[in-house]
């Protein structure tokens, strides 16, 4: 317990913001997906840090259960997102998010 809670939260916030910058600024769709995975990881660190330091009733392991659900959802989302990227590449020969603008005005 000699690593205080605020350190974990700071690292998680930094990871989230780096992931956010990547998701908004990268050109390649797969790079955007990688940045989204970083954001989900930072959420997991937050969950576990709060469970470890703040939760009184630890026997239900709520932090770990929630983190497992988040990992599951991240895996499902990565699978579908990458399938979409591959289908996009097959049809348009590009995974550049700048080129996928049919629905723009």
């Amino acid at each position: 317990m000699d690593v205080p809670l605020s350190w974990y939260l700071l690292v998680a916030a930094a990871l989230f913001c780096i992931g956010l910058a990547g998701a908004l600024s990268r050109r390649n769709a797969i790079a955007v997906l990688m940045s989204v995975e970083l954001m989900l990881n930072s959420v997991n660190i937050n969950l576990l840090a709060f469970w470890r330091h703040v939760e009184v009733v630890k026997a239900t392991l709520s932090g770990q259960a929630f983190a497992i659900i988040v990992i599951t959802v991240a895996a499902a989302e990565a699978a579908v997102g990458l399938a979409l990227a591959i289908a996009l590449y097959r049809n348009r020969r590009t995974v550049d998010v700048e080129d996928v603008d049919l629905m723009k005005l």
Partner: protein
Amino acid sequence: MTVSQVVFILLSIAALGGALGVVFARNLFRSALALVLSFVGVAGFYVLLEAELLAMIQILVYVGAIAILIIFAIMLSRRLMSSETLPWNEQWVGAVIVAVVLFAALVFVLIRVDWPTAEAQVPPDAISLLGQSLVSPDFYVLPFEVASVLLLVALVGAVIIAREQ
């Protein structure tokens, strides 16, 4: 500076360095490897937080499956390894500003709040308790079952979307 704090700093260098590598690397394969480094760093955090089962699950699922999926997708969508354009799109200035502002706001909040602490110990038989809490109707059986249905739907959907016509 206790040993845990030194280990924490090393792990955060790995996790944040990997994250910076994902965002700033020009070669897409190198950013995938930086992502793997970041995942391993985060798994180290879980071990520090006394959640070893979750650290192993993190490595198994993220490094062993998601990172491989990402690498396969990168390999299947390469256009003969050409990178004429910069890897950033047109709105990268706004993205960086948003990220920095958000980080400043979060740090401002996090440092000022007086977090409540509870010194309760992590139970020694955490693994069996986790199993019970995931299937007990008093606790988390509903998100667990919904997550398994979600996985099935995502699996079928991904296979159908990525199928060759």
